[in-house]
């Protein structure tokens, strides 16, 4: 009995340290490996195309003989850049819009939230494709596309939280104390929603990475030669059908493992915000 009770407690703790270690490793690799080993990841070697993993090429080579380990690391760097910047932009926009709607209430709230509903009613990959389609391929349109489609959920979360904080007596006390609407929002409401907004931002990073990969996989993201994880999986489709598994497997793992690790971190953070909520991985 005691054993079955202690088990659910032990698993999240293990996943916390494991996720933390994986996230730290991913960030360090993405930041420093390309700087410490400045090897050209675009170097083509047609004599060595589609080699399986070996000592020379631990992840093997792709269909034009480029080293897959090197390209995975560069792809991770680009994916993280897209994920982090897009999540930050989306969080800032979402928090501002949600706080505005929640703090003003009334008509402003209704109008803003109907706009949010309108955007949410379009599948966001479709909306994202629309955004990238308006620009030349490149990293900034991809970031803009992901950010513009992901502030909606943050706006909803922040608005709900602001609405619940707004009815607390300490807000009444601030009103009696002469605080302006602006001061109440900035000094009492926003600091109260920051933990939730931060959690939403962390959870958004892996989602944004998926989004970048999906856009690149559809051929709408980064230029085809660029070593992005989505581009690599896309390029590997043909060789997978021929039985060459490594050009698909390794970039795939580079998408999945950091995603799970960030989700694990965020899940334990959420449990700390609300100990009553069960831990589950949702993306």
């Amino acid at each position, binding site marked *: 009995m005691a054993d079955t009770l202690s088990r659910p407690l032990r698993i999240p703790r293990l996943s916390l340290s494991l996720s933390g270690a994986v996230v730290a490793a991913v960030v360090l690799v993405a930041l420093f490996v390309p700087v410490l080993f400045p090897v050209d990841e675009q170097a083509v070697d047609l004599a060595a195309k589609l080699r399986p993993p070996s000592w020379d090429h631990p992840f093997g080579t792709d269909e034009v003989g480029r080293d897959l380990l090197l390209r995975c690391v560069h792809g991770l760097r680009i994916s993280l850049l897209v994920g982090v910047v897009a999540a930050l932009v989306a969080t800032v926009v979402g928090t501002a819009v949600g706080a505005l709607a929640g703090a003003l209430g009334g008509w402003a709230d209704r109008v803003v939230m109907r706009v949010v509903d309108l955007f949410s009613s379009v599948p966001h990959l479709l909306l994202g494709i629309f955004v990238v389609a308006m620009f030349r391929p490149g990293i900034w349109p991809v970031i803009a596309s992901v950010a513009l489609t992901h502030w909606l959920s943050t706006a909803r979360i922040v608005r709900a939280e602001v609405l619940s904080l707004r009815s607390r007596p300490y807000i*009444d*006390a601030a009103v*009696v104390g*002469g*605080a302006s609407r602006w001061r109440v929002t900035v000094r009492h409401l926003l*600091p109260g929603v920051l933990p939730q907004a931060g959690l939403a931002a962390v959870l958004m990073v892996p989602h944004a990475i998926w989004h970048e990969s999906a856009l690149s996989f559809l051929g709408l993201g980064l230029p085809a030669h660029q070593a992005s994880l989505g581009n690599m999986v896309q390029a590997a489709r043909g060789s997978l059908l021929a039985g060459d598994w490594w050009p698909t497997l390794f970039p795939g793992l580079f998408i999945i493992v950091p995603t799970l690790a960030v989700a694990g971190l965020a899940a334990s953070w959420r449990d700390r915000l609300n100990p009553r909520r069960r831990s589950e991985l949702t993306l």
Partner: protein
Amino acid sequence: MLELSRITAGYERRAPVVRDVSLTVAPGEAVGLLGPSGCGKSTLARVAALLHRPYSGTVVVDGRAAHGWRHRAPREQRTAFGVVFQQPRLSADPRMRLADLIAEPLRATGRRDEAAARVDELAGRVGLSAELLRRRPHEVSDGQLQRACLARALVLRPRWLICDEMTAMLDASTTAALVAVVEDYRAESGAGLLTVGHDSVLLDRWCDRTARWEDLASGAG
């Protein structure tokens, strides 16, 4: 004068908790409002402090009728009130140290430079040590937090004090100490007091006059 006339207020228009209630507090007067829990006396106190807009009725503060509530009330009308709420835990921003909590109304009204001296003075009055002032709400007891909330209510030197069940969560000695602080402040400033509670012994001893909810409310059940 603080004049509430024919106030109807509540949270649902079809079933207002306060129906057609009138109440007047003279400058310097202490009025107790006595009633069972859930009767609407706290709502009336919130209307009086311009925190809750009534469906009908008028509030006249020092000869000026209130036209807006909450942020729509002019700042000098809002800050004429000092309000202490029932639950100190909910009326303190959990992220603020007690010293900042007390100083916040001064900072919000652009009188930042007075804050340090005023906080020291009020902390002495309500009996909070310098060490307690550095703590956050979750690190102090309900009684200590309510002392800080009373200090915050007094920091702008209000002409009207509204205490909504201020002592309901507190022990007898803290109750006595806080009532003494309120009375000292009223003696020197001449502020009027509206205190809401369900303890008739306390209200009868504290106030010049105790109004019973069932006598005030013509239509309330």
